[in-house]
């Protein structure tokens, strides 16, 4: 087992507009991307569980030509609202780093 953070070249989160948050998990070679994709650990359901959502609220994509897995969720707080702590949405990916990949 390896942590996802050790396989990806970049795991990031960012605003996709003020109302959605998007996660990119990017790889620098096809073997690592395939390993993660085929392991089945990174799914819509897994992302939903990490962020307290129903799977139907998660947009989930396997992007073969970019060697990337992508997911988008409704922003936990709209950008800039009084309870929002991350205006650019840039530090919400940390829980994904610990996902164990066989």
């Amino acid at each position, binding site marked *: 087992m390896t942590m996802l953070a050790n396989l990806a070249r970049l795991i990031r989160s*960012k*605003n*996709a*507009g*003020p*109302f*959605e948050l*998007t996660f*990119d998990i*990017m790889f*620098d070679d096809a073997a690592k991307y395939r390993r993660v994709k085929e392991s089945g650990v990174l799914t819509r359901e897994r992302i939903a569980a*990490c*962020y*307290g959502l129903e799977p139907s609220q998660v*947009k989930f*994509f396997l*992007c073969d*030509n*970019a*060697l*990337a897995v*992508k997911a*988008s969720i*409704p*922003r*936990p*707080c*709209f*950008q*800039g*609202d*009084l*309870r929002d*702590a*991350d*205006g*650019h949405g840039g*530090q*919400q990916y*940390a*829980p994904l780093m610990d996902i164990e990949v066989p």
Partner: protein
Amino acid sequence: MEEMRILSPTGVCGSGFLEESFEKALAKKPHFIGCDGGSTDPGPSHLGSGQPAFPREATKRDLRIMLLGARRIDVPLLIGSAGTAGGDVHLDWFCDIVHEIAAEEGLSFKLAKIHAEQKHDYLKKRLREGRIKPLQPAPEFNEGVIDRASCIVGMMGAEPYMRALEAGADVIVAGRSSDTAIFASIPVMRGFPEGVAWHMGKILECGAAAVVSRKTPDCMFAWVRKDHFVVEAPDERLRCTPQSIASHSLYENADPYKLVECSGTLDLTDSRYEAVSDRAVKVSGSAFIHAPRYTVKLEGAEKVGYQSVIIGSVRDPFIIRQIDNWVEQLEGRIHARVKQIYGERMSPEQYFINIRIYGKNGTMGPLEPVKEIRSHELCLVIEATAPTQDIASSIAGVVRHQALHLPIPEWSGLITALACPYNPAHLDRGAVYRFNVNHVVEPDDPYEMFPTEYVQIGTASKQRQRAAA
């Protein structure tokens, strides 16, 4: 026309680029220069307050190089989302810099100034007609929201740019705009396929962001042809690879394959990315699917109130181990004291106390999966938001005093629980804003929301002399 060449100096006007890269790109004879000037990413306060996110001097530096370059080779310069949020005050701020540079440099050109701020009466009319529709997720939008809004802008498509170009504009400064539309407009006008033009725009709108490893903001260049485009950074040290270009469509988009514009959707499902050198990538196969109805996305901001902030830290392990309980008690005491001071004049709904605990869950709040505090100190950021700055500052004063001396059972006697680095302990933040709309309008045509003014800068005769020379 077989080929059209496009230069994007940087991802946002004001963020900078290397003048050397810009000159290299000009030598490749671009047919036009485009640059994005804004985004919602800096947050609702820019739209609400009218303040741009980038400093005036930084914007002027970038703009001077672009204007001089575009006029020197006599090609159009298109700038969208002027002044960050693209409202009228932002557009005026930006055009003022254009005028200033033109006067300093003795430039003459025809300026088109395209407005994007929306009149409240127009929005109410379209709302009553059922022609304002929510995107997902969207806050409630009604006439009250329109009345409360400090500023609502529409995000224009490519058509207002095309019309300004047809009217002979040399320089276009537009309010809020689709970033991609800035770049897609001219190639689409010249008959290049829309899938190629819009996908090229999507890559170029971020400047050199799509290269493998961008060290500083810089230029990007594209060649648009009949069935593909090629993209390359003018700086030889920067490389585009098929993967770096394919990956760029992920950035800040909820869906990496379907990018919605006013007139339709750019579909990248069948896009192909091929290396044409170790630095340039050819992109083909992208499609643009026209929407049955033209839609314009709205962005709006309203004032929430005024805010004061207290930043302080806790080092005592007795307090840290009971921080949730301590904070809960603190909130209770703040509300009790505010009630004592203001009585009936201020209900709990009129002000808001927010306590963030950095070192515990400051970044992720309730979504933080790590429940155990592993730090020997915590930072508390406590905000008071109220109808006036005076009340917010007064409540911050209450917060400071209540937090300082809130007791814990482990100690007997008066404690001082919060270390305050600043004096006075609170910072007045002024007005705070929130985004209040995530909807689209269905206009009669692509232009009605975006009136255009034309201004002759310098003298028209100078322009003719230059053309003759």
